């Protein structure tokens, strides 16, 4: 139970696609409160496009991430196209030579994606964006790796960190994205991107657990 087969990654991507599809309306509703109400529509369109395009094709985890990222980047646009596109492409690239993916590998992949992402956005934790989910999730994985924790335990902790991070956005003032100019009025509502990021990390984590050998 220390790694999973990169080749079997399709199920992880499928789980990610499904979680977005199932939460399409929820994500748009949240975005509607302080944004423009299209987050679920944008995400669903991109993820479903990817699903359709690669339906009958073999895909490893890292390939899948790259293809998903490229689809988002080149077909969807919006903030999400570039943000999740950059994140997934970065993750995929970092995992390109792996046969088995360990906790340390997954951590390194997400770290690479996050660092690529930081090149195009300025948001830091506390700015009420998906970074508030991604950063603590990555932190948690890093700590688990250091402590050589069990992969499954690490994933459960990561999920919890992502959720806590996403929940924390409720109390924050938005500083980036459409909601940023709301000031005080953005407080009390979670950030849509932080919620989709939490859903994606949770789906990924759960699907990996199923694949652990």
């Amino acid at each position: 139970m220390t790694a999973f087969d990169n080749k079997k990654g399709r199920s992880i991507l499928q789980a990610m696609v499904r979680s977005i599809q199932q939460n399409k309306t929820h994500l748009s509703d949240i975005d509607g409160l302080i944004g423009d109400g299209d987050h679920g529509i944008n995400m669903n369109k991109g993820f479903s496009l990817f699903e359709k395009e690669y339906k009958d094709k073999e895909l490893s985890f890292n390939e899948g991430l790259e293809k998903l990222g490229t689809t988002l980047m080149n077909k969807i646009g919006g903030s999400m196209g570039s943000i999740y596109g950059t994140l997934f492409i970065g993750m995929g690239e970092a995992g390109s030579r792996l046969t088995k993916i360990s906790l340390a590998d997954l951590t390194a992949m997400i770290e690479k994606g996050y660092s690529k992402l930081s090149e195009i956005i300025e948001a830091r934790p506390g700015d009420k964006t998906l970074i508030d989910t991604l950063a603590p999730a990555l932190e948690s994985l890093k700590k688990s790796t250091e402590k050589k924790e069990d992969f499954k335990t690490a994933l459960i902790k990561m999920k919890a960190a992502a959720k806590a991070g996403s929940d924390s956005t409720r109390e924050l003032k938005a500083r980036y994205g459409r909601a940023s100019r709301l000031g005080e009025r953005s407080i009390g509502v979670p950030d849509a991107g932080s919620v989709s990021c939490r859903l994606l990390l949770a789906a990924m984590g759960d699907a990996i657990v199923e694949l652990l050998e």
Partner: protein
Amino acid sequence: MQRIINDPDNIVDEMLEGFLKAHADIVEATANPRVIKARNIPGAKVGIITGGGSGHKPAFIGYVGKNMCDAAAVGEIFSSPTAAAFLDAAKVADQKKGVACLYGNYSGDNMNVKMAVAMAKKEGIAIKTVIANDDVASAPADQREKRRGVAGEIFMWKVGAAKAAQGASLDEVIAAAQKAVDSTRSVGIGLSPCTLPAADHPNFAIKPSTMEIGIGHHGEPGMKVEPLGSAEDIAKIMVNIVLPDYPFKEGDQTAVLVSGLGATPVMELYVLYNEIEKLLQQKGIKIYKNYVGNYFTSLEMKGATFTMMKLDDELKELIDMPACSMGLKEGVCS
């Protein structure tokens, strides 16, 4: 939702098909289905491109044409075009005299343009950007760089494109477009929300008998919600937000744009313009040129925006240059 569409996921592509058929005298398709270009872009001039989310008709593609933008990248509804689309627009508009990308300040557009600019430069295209941030209500004056671009983008395009048509260099075009942005202020008031075609309910709410002051072009919440006022009240609120911010003062010559947000009857825009004109007259501000109509909309939102640009001799000359696009027809459309 009561709409004339087929599959909501294809609305942008189908709209483009219809638009290209309807305005074949002004625009044409390119290899990238999400990029449209003006017919017969004159050579040896700076290329002018823009781009943005759909649902703002005439913006953005309605401002592509003669002496207007040369190409536009088209996004999903309320969503930035891809970096690839911005890049392809730049390629199409490039006449080896440089390309000016004139767009509005939204995080999606910023990211995608940033990536497109990097790729364009790699391919040897001299490209520079101007980012419209005319929406006064979207950030305090000391954070102007955070403000959204709204209907004032039209002045940026008109001025930048006219400068390019005069044969100016890329730097001169950028300077003129930047001057237009710096001299322009806008504010929007929302009276009812809009519904995204793929959604089944409005993406935000405006309670009956209230109005949202400072609303954005995608329903981004504004500065405050107040009881719905009369046209006179609304004009006063708008003028009092826009005027002090620049500041506009007695004797100034200006261009004034009152745009509907989509579903407000044009009749009401004239009632509003009438009130705004009276207030400006009282303050001794001259309207050199006016635009009243649905120039920059948000699907079927009700409400209006008020935009004002202070003119100097250069801006006057540029704003007066004939142009022919679907959204702005001034002088010869041939």
